[in-house]
């Protein structure tokens, strides 16, 4: 088997043009996911899929291919420490800074299947009950429609809940749904889910307090990375907080951000 190198090049360029995402060195993932997609849609092989992409670039199948190749598996409370510092330092500071207006706005920029925004919403509910009296806006976006739909459904199987969801949270914020578990409406209704392509111009609520843009910038080249962060910073209030993925940094991007070292993790603040 194996996808022909030329076909692989076509695919990588096609995905980059459509989404800005770079798939260098991801040949194994590409082949495995496309093989699965072929069997789902009844195509005999990846070659047939590529032929369909070339002849009908705007078909629903093309959308499926893009979504298949740009979706990440993810964790609850991914990397643990950013959420610790969010709970122990960032939220208490925001409660103080915003107590006059009682407004708290967050954006989860690459929400994938929903684990990140739900982790944030559950953490806020569990530890900051006073926020029930605040106007809290939590926007969650991702590139792929089927991913955002799955996130909004908030239903997870046993392998997914085993990936870092603390038992106390599962017990309190989920309900049984056959052989799966579904997030309760009290948490689901706190989040607004939308599709959004980070590489295209986008409009966000102004005056965001916190932006989570984690484990997605690694897929972009430096100019694209910088452009995305500049747009995000345009909506972040002065002094607002930015969280990146554990393997990501703002090094060399020349952005108006201050780095805060917080033990086992770092986060950033927009210059005032």
């Amino acid at each position, binding site marked *: 088997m194996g996808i022909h190198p030329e076909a692989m090049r076509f695919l990588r360029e096609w995905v980059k043009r459509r989404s800005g995402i770079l798939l260098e060195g991801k040949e194994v993932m590409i082949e495995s996911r496309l093989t699965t997609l072929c069997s789902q849609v009844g195509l005999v092989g990846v070659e047939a899929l590529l032929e369909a992409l070339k002849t009908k670039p705007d078909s629903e199948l093309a959308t499926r291919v893009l979504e298949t190749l740009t979706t990440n598996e993810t*964790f609850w409370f991914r990397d*643990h420490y950013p959420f610790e510092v969010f709970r122990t330092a960032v939220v208490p500071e925001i409660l103080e800074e915003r107590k006059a207006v009682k407004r708290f706005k967050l954006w989860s920029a690459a929400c994938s299947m929903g684990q990140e925004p739900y982790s944030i919403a559950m953490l806020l509910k569990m530890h900051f009950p006073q926020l029930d009296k605040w106007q809290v806006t939590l926007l969650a976006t991702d590139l792929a429609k089927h991913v955002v739909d799955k996130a909004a459904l908030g239903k997870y199987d*046993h392998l997914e*809940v*085993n*990936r*870092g969801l*603390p*038992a*106390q949270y*599962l*017990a309190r914020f*989920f*309900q*049984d749904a056959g*052989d799966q*578990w579904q997030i309760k409406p009290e948490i689901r209704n706190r989040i607004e889910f939308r599709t959004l392509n980070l590489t295209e111009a986008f409009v966000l609520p102004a005056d965001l307090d916190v932006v989570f843009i984690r484990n997605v910038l690694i897929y972009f080249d430096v100019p694209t990375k910088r452009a995305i962060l500049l747009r995000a910073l345009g909506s972040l209030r002065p002094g607002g907080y930015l969280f990146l993925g554990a393997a990501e940094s703002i090094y060399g991007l020349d952005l108006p951000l201050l780095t805060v070292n917080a033990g086992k993790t770092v986060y950033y603040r927009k210059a005032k």
Partner: protein
Amino acid sequence: VPSESKRALVIDDNPVDRLVLSGIVKGLGFGTEESEDGQAGLDRIAREPPFDVILVDWNMPRLDGIGFLRGVRASPKGSKVRIIMVTGETELSSLRKALEAGADEYLMKPYNREAIQLKLRMLGLAV
């Protein structure tokens, strides 16, 4: 096993499950002991140095996981140890029952090494 290793106790009546779980925990740097049911686990805890973490099955003869949790939480040597229930019971009512009986964490079978590692990390026990 280096003497400074953290100590884990794996309690399961199924020898294969016990071996697999024990192997994963050992691979994560723990020294492990094994017991074949809740009562044997309680006996071992009473006579051995304290464990850092206990991974216990639910359905076992003699004394099941819930009975074990209640017993260990009532004993002076077991009030602080971290306990993960590892079970095929997947209803949330079961999960809540285990938490009420004293489990710190809950992991549903089947699981993999990553899931175990994440649970240990949540309890401050693994990198």
